[in-house]
């Protein structure tokens, strides 16, 4: 069913984000930081959900695309900042984000075309490999600070940008999937051979999902860069990719609402555990294990039947 009024939701989402942004001056810096983390996590998880959940292509390289977008956007901002006034530079922020996203999408295309011929575990390993290669390249590129990282990125990211773009991401992914064209992604997920024989070019769909996912991961990377003001290659290793994958799986693979909820939960959880800082990551790991043992279909999935809509 086409969501009538999908655009209305999008506008409501962006409006709320802008409102939140205006009110953010009253927020404690710590909470503000976490709120931005949550918005970025939503973008990452929703975009990976298109690849892993809807299209069923297990990618372990999402952090790599995030890195590409983040570094590129940050590098642009620093270049622009060096030659324009601060106001102009700040106004160019959306362009940096867009450029970061597009560059990540381009890399996504270059990575996706050869590797999406592989399936299952093999695809997972190769995407993991590409993610690591991207990280190592960043580590050796002087222009982006190499191993010591990229410092002094201007802080342009606001709640309005993160949640506004999170709303855009959710809108885009659900809109694409909730259409006759987009049902093809689910068909590829279910049965590639049947999809091919029904006239669905599986390669094309996979690449489109991959490139779209990479684009939004790149945008999320840009937001992250202008939020933390510092980028280090080690922040984008494969453990980061796995964190995003865990959000998608706990959210119930292909269920947008569940994935958003999982993204929020898994971002907040380490903060809740801050009191037990010593045991924090141990608890996090145990939680993954127990959730997989007890709720393998997703945290919020109570019926066995898979809902077709996103």
């Amino acid at each position, binding site marked *: 069913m086409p969501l009538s009024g999908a655009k209305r939701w999008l506008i409501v989402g962006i409006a709320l984000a802008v409102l939140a942004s205006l009110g953010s001056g009253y927020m404690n810096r710590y909470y503000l930081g976490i709120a931005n983390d949550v918005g970025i996590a939503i973008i990452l998880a929703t975009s990976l959900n298109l690849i892993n959940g809807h299209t069923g292509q297990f990618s372990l390289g999402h952090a790599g695309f995030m890195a590409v977008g983040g570094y590129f956007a940050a590098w642009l901002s620093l270049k622009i900042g060096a030659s324009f006034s601060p106001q102009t530079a700040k106004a160019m922020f959306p362009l940096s984000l867009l450029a970061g996203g597009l560059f990540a999408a381009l890399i996504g295309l270059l990575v996706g075309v050869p590797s999406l011929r592989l399936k299952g575990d093999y695809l997972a390993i*190769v995407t*993991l490999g590409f993610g690591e290669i991207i990280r190592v390249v960043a580590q050796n590129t002087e222009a982006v600070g190499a191993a010591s990282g990229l410092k002094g990125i201007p802080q342009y990211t606001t709640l309005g940008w993160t949640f506004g773009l999170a709303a855009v991401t959710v809108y885009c992914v659900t809109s694409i999937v909730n259409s006759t064209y987009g049902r093809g992604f689910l068909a590829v997920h279910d049965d590639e051979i049947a999809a091919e024989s029904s006239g669905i070019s599986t390669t094309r769909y996979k690449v489109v999902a991959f490139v779209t996912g990479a684009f939004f991961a790149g945008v999320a990377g840009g937001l992250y860069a202008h939020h933390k003001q510092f980028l280090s290659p080690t922040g984008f290793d494969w453990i980061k990719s796995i964190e995003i994958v865990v959000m998608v799986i706990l959210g119930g693979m292909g269920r947008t609402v569940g994935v958003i909820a999982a993204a929020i939960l898994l971002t907040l959880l380490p903060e809740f555990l801050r009191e037990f800082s010593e045991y924090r990551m141990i608890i996090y790991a145990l939680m993954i294990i127990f959730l997989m043992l007890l709720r393998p279909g997703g945290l919020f999935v109570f019926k066995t039947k898979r809902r077709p809509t996103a």
Partner: protein
Amino acid sequence: MDFQQIIQQLINGLGLGSIYALIALGYTMVYGVLRFINFAHSDVLMLGAFSAFYLAPLVQKMVGPESIMGGILVFVLSAAICACIGMLIEFLAYRPLRKRPKLTVLITAIGVSLFIEYTGQHAAVFGSATRAFPKILPEHQIHLGKLMLNSNDIIVPTVTIVLLAAMWFIVQKTRIGTAMRAVSFNQQAASLMGVPVNRIISFTFGLGSALAAIAGILYSIKAPGIEPLMGVQPGLRAFIAAVVGGIGNLPGAVLGGLLIGVVETFAGGIPGLSNYRDAIAFGILILILLFKPAGLLGRATIEKV
């Protein structure tokens, strides 16, 4: 690079490669019977190294320092401990998921891996600092013409070859090996034929983990020190080696391990490339999978329609 250096590098590469091969065998055997990648394997390797770290002083008190006998004892005991740990992991974390999608098991394995790593880093366990690994084998320098060899350069490949031969024997010539191959071929049919599938899987984990423990010790002998995350990098490379060779294929794992060990060692000696060491194994993997999607020795399966 002159000829002598090339030989030296080749020896180093084969030494490193044979350690990768040992670890890769564990990945590939588990994949053979359960069809999933046991991410926690690299942490068993670390546990093997730490077992030896704590065992070595005890053993040396009993049999004297740096004796061959003591060395062997440390290897055997560590392997036994890790075999138990491997079987325990399988029993607690993977067995309840036997009927679930592979993805669930994969994520659980990642969870187990993170759990071991973070627990190990806790101050009350191993702590996150790097510690010097004790000498558990006597060391000698051997001069072969102009070549300078450390006795470890010989011990490592020798141990590997012996273990590989043992593996081949177990898998191809023993009853339990036949059962392993049966489980790998078709789990359901194997259980209908009276193969105790759970016990075979457990055994496979034990065997793979014992190999990982030995590989962990061999790796630590040459490494500057040991710490709870030490398994990650060799684990990742070994796992790539298993895939490059054709996952599920034992000779493939060995071939892949040697290939990656040698290429990595040579690349490490080239100034421009040495910074990209971490990426090289993946580069090899991607190149090979693009041309041989099932790995070097893996057989392409034709999907039945």
